[in-house]
Every structure is written in C-alpha cells, then in structure tokens.
C-alpha cells in the first residue's frame, strides 16, 4: 500500500519531467503553471513527511481484520498468527499488532452468531479432519472452499509447501520478503544450494512443487471426505468455527 508520501514523490517526479518538457518546447505559460504545481506538491510533501514523523509508530493503515485477510489471501492456506504477522510484515505496509490477534477469532464468531452473513467475509477456524473441531491456533477465511479449511494429518506439510510457493511467487516484486522465503526454503529439500547463501524464488517453487506432488493426492482425499462430513453434520456457524463436541467417526 503506497503511503501519501509515496504518492507525492511520484507526482513530484512527474511534474519535474513535465516542467522540463514544457521549457524545452518553449511553452512558457504551461511551464509557469507546472512550476507552481510543483512548488505546491513539494510543500505538501514537506507537510506529509512531518506528519509521518509525528505518528511513530506507524499506525496500521487498515483495521486488523483486513490486515489478516490480506495475509491469509496471499498465503491461500490456514495459518498461525506468527506466520501471518511475518507475512504481513514482508509484503504489506503497517504492522499487525500480535496482541490483538488473540481475540480476533472469538470476536468474529460472536459477530457471525449475532447476525450471520452480514459481512463479505469472516476470519474463522481451520477444522481438524477427524473431529471437525477448531484446529488450535490456525486462522482461515470463510469464503474459502470448506475442504481448504480442513486440516488432516498431511495438511500441515501440504499447507507449508503451498505457502512457500505463494510466498516465492510474490517475492520477486517484494525484496522485503527474502528473509521469510529463506525461512521456508531451508526446510524444503532441494530449495537452496548447499551453502544456503542464495535463495532463488523459482528454485523454491520447483522444490516445493516436487514435494507437494508426493503428499497432495492423499491429503486432498482426507480433506474432501472430512468436508463432506462437515457439510452434513454441522450447522453454518460450526462449519466456520468448528464443532465443540467430540464427534468420533
């Protein structure tokens, strides 16, 4: 997300180019108007910078649920708060305040139960495949297909590899993501060279895909079977936030 300062800087650059072009073209009236424009932009830039300095630490530009939603959407798989914070830090502006994450899921559940389906999405639980109970510490998005929110015995690894691929695919455009990518790469066979010195996104993607191919089939059938059970056994709220009873099958 570009900040106001970013926007102004871009505008200033554009104006400078335009002033130069007007001068070279001999269009004095245009050049004068553009110069005035440029001064104004520079003054605004000064003010914006002061404001920026005043408001440290930088407050999140988005409410926390949007931040979490962004991070989850980038990953595409259920994730723990720690990972969400790291992903957000690597790819988005602003910081997720960890302490506020703890009550998030509960608040979402409360809001859903009070007035179901009033929001475009809810941040909800991943469900364990065997008991359809909320999986400890994993957040997901309500608009995802149900089977993507189910975690079976192989899903932790499958989701880790999927997340690695998604991060690698985005990493090219986000130099800040390199550290996060390395953290994933060192734990995937063949994703780094022997010295761990160089992490190449395309190598990570290839290595993660290779391992993913080993687990994917079995994992999908666990998940789909559990999702089917959830659809027939659980009501709307429990499909999103998990069943509290011990349901053995």
């Amino acid at each position, binding site marked *: 997300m570009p900040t106001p300062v970013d926007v102004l800087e871009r505008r200033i650059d554009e104006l400078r180019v335009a002033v130069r072009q007007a001068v070279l073209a001999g269009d004095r009236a245009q050049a004068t108007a553009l110069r005035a424009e440029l001064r104004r932009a520079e003054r605004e830039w000064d003010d914006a910078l002061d404001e920026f300095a005043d408001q440290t630490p930088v407050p999140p530009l988005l409410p926390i649920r949007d931040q979490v939603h962004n991070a989850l959407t980038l990953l595409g798989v259920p994730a723990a708060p720690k990972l969400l914070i790291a992903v957000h830090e690597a790819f988005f502006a602003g910081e997720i305040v960890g302490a506020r994450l703890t009550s998030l899921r509960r608040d979402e559940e409360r809001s859903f139960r009070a007035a179901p389906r009033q929001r475009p999405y809810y941040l909800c639980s991943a469900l364990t495949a065997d008991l359809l109970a909320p999986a400890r510490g994993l957040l997901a998005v309500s608009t995802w297909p149900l089977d993507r929110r189910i975690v079976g015995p192989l899903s932790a690894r499958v989701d880790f590899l999927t997340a690695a691929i998604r991060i690698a695919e985005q990493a090219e455009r986000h130099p800040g993501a390199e550290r996060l990518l390395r953290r994933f790469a060192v734990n995937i066979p063949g994703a780094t060279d022997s010295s761990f010195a160089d992490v190449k996104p395309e190598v990570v993607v290839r290595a993660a895909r290779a391992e993913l191919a*080993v*687990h994917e089939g079995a994992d999908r059938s666990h998940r789909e079977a559990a999702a089917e059970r959830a659809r027939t056994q659980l009501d709307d709220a429990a499909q999103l936030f998990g069943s509290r009873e011990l349901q053995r099958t």
Partner: protein
Amino acid sequence: MTSPERLRGAAAPKSHNARTIAALTTNPGCSRRAVMDAAGIDKERLAAYVGFPARFGQSQFAITRGNVFEAQLKADGCAELLRLLREVLGLPIPQVSYDDLESVDQLDARADRSRELLTRAAGGESGTLFDHPLLRLEVGGRWVYLEPDLIALQFGGTFYVVEIKSFAVIDGQADGTKVSAAATQAAVYVLALRRLLAEAGHDPGLVSHEVVLVCPENFSNRPVATLVDVRKKLSVLERQLARMARIDPILESLSPDLTFDLRPDSSGVPQRPVAELVDGLGQIDARYSPECLANCELAFFCRHEARGTTASLGKSVREELGGVPSVDLALSLASGAVAPADDQEEAAAMLRFAAQLRSECLS
C-alpha cells in the same frame, strides 16, 4: 487399612510426568514417597504448608526458553523438525503425517485416542508424528498417567521417542548430567510406549532403544538432533519399578483416619492444623538420603526429621556405619565412651581408628 483416595482427600490427584517417575526410581525404598506418589498427593504444596518448601524445579526462565524452542521446531507443520529427522534418521519424504493428540480435552479420551492411533500405526497403518500422546505406566502397583511433552515418531515399522530440550550442545558436546537426565526421562517414555504396544498385542521391540534428542546448537536457536542409546537407563528403570515396594502392604499398616487433605476454605487457603499433618507424615516410614534434595519435594522436611541419623549423611556413610543409627552413638563409639554391641564391632573399630587419626592430625 486406608486408601489412596482417603489419603489425598478432596484435592485433585497430581499428575506424573517422566521427571517425577525418573526421580521416583532414585529412592525406591522410601515408603513415604511411594504412598504420596501413588495417592497423587501434591507433595510440593504439602511441604510448603508444613514449613519446608522445596527448593528445586526449573526456573521460569528455563521453562519459557524451552517452550519457545519447542514452538519453533513445531511451527509451520513441524518444518524444522522434519528437516532434522530427514537428516539424522533418513526419514523418507512421504512421511510427514502429524497428529496432535492434545487436541482432545478429556484425559481418558486422550489416552484412548493415543492408544488407538499408536496401535494402528504399529499395525502397519499410516501415521508418522504423534504429538503429546498420553501414556500410562504402572508405578508401585498403581497406574499413573504420563503427561509427556514428547513426540512419538514412527517410520519403517519402528517407533522413536523424540525429546526436545532447550539445553545447548556446544561443539558437539552437551552437559553430561543434563543429557543423562533427559535420557532417563526418555527411557520412561520408551518403557510406557513399549507396554502400550505390548498390551495391544504388538511386539514391544517395535519401540527403539535409541531416542532422538533435539537441542539448540552453540547458543543459537539452530536445532541439532542426536541419537541417544537409553538401553542402560531402561534396564535400571525396569528393575527399580519392579522392585518398588507395592504400596498395598504399606497402606494396610496405616490408620484408617490418616489423611493429607489440607482442607482449604472457600478461597483455597488450607485450614488443616500443621501439627496434624506433621504427625501424619511421621506415621509413614521415610528413608532420607542427601540425593532426596535433588529429587523429592519433601526433602527439607525429611532432612529435618532425619537430623542426627547416620543415614542422612549419605549412602557411603550409611553403608560403612551399618548398625550404628545415630550420629551421637557413632561419636560415643569413637571416643570409647560406649562399648559396641556385637554387630557394631567392625564399625566401632573403624570409628576409633578415625578418631585417633583425627586427634593426631590436630595435635
């Protein structure tokens, strides 16, 4: 005859872990400890209440550090742990399945589920990592639940106990006593896992005598894994558990009114007169030795009680001075003020010799 439930009173039973069982085997002859542990009495609370609080246990700092390290290994689908197991044990790539057995709340349900999943895995069905399985072990004639913080790993038909510890391995070396303590605890798990499989009709030999110890390397947070052979620990443990006095005969000798209920009031503050509890403790034989200080919550109480006995000076003194129970008597024998009884002759001769040497040295 009394019962463990009576002895414990209204309090919830204190659960065992591998550390307490490992400690239990260090003083198998002590009836007091056997009764307290079998009844699930909170020894730490009792000791503190009667004025002799225990002074051991892990510091909060160490516990936090341990939890952080463990969380790090298990984060992102056990990513780091899997890498280590692949490196050290050659765990094949397809073996990544992970079951968290703590996701079930009730204790019995957890134990059932642990048994179900582990025996299924032993029967050749899938399952690789089992986190927080709840195991049981028979101690002194009673079953105790183990609340282990371990991972059981199964592959190629063999089970391994994986223990995550936060003490550092520096240049390939770790503190010997810490490794040894970790190995003893791991041996408790190995044993409990073997018995679980045996009960279900599987070969207990499916559980390896090698355990995987995971520690941070060189003060970094980078983990290393090593295989530790716990065969020796296992045989000591099995022998001690078998030898441990069954507690029923001890219970038989105790008065039926004896109880260690602290009778807390509605706000949880104990109301029981301390003298009654001290008297109650005195009714069960103890066997204090200095090793108790590192292993038993009641140690300061028992040491105080045993003051003046030769046994309280440690195993070697107790063995040398067999038949001479008190320090006073030992001193009298040494000075010749008291004539030794027949079975004290040998000890008395040694004491006199020692006294002579001492006076020569000091004069």
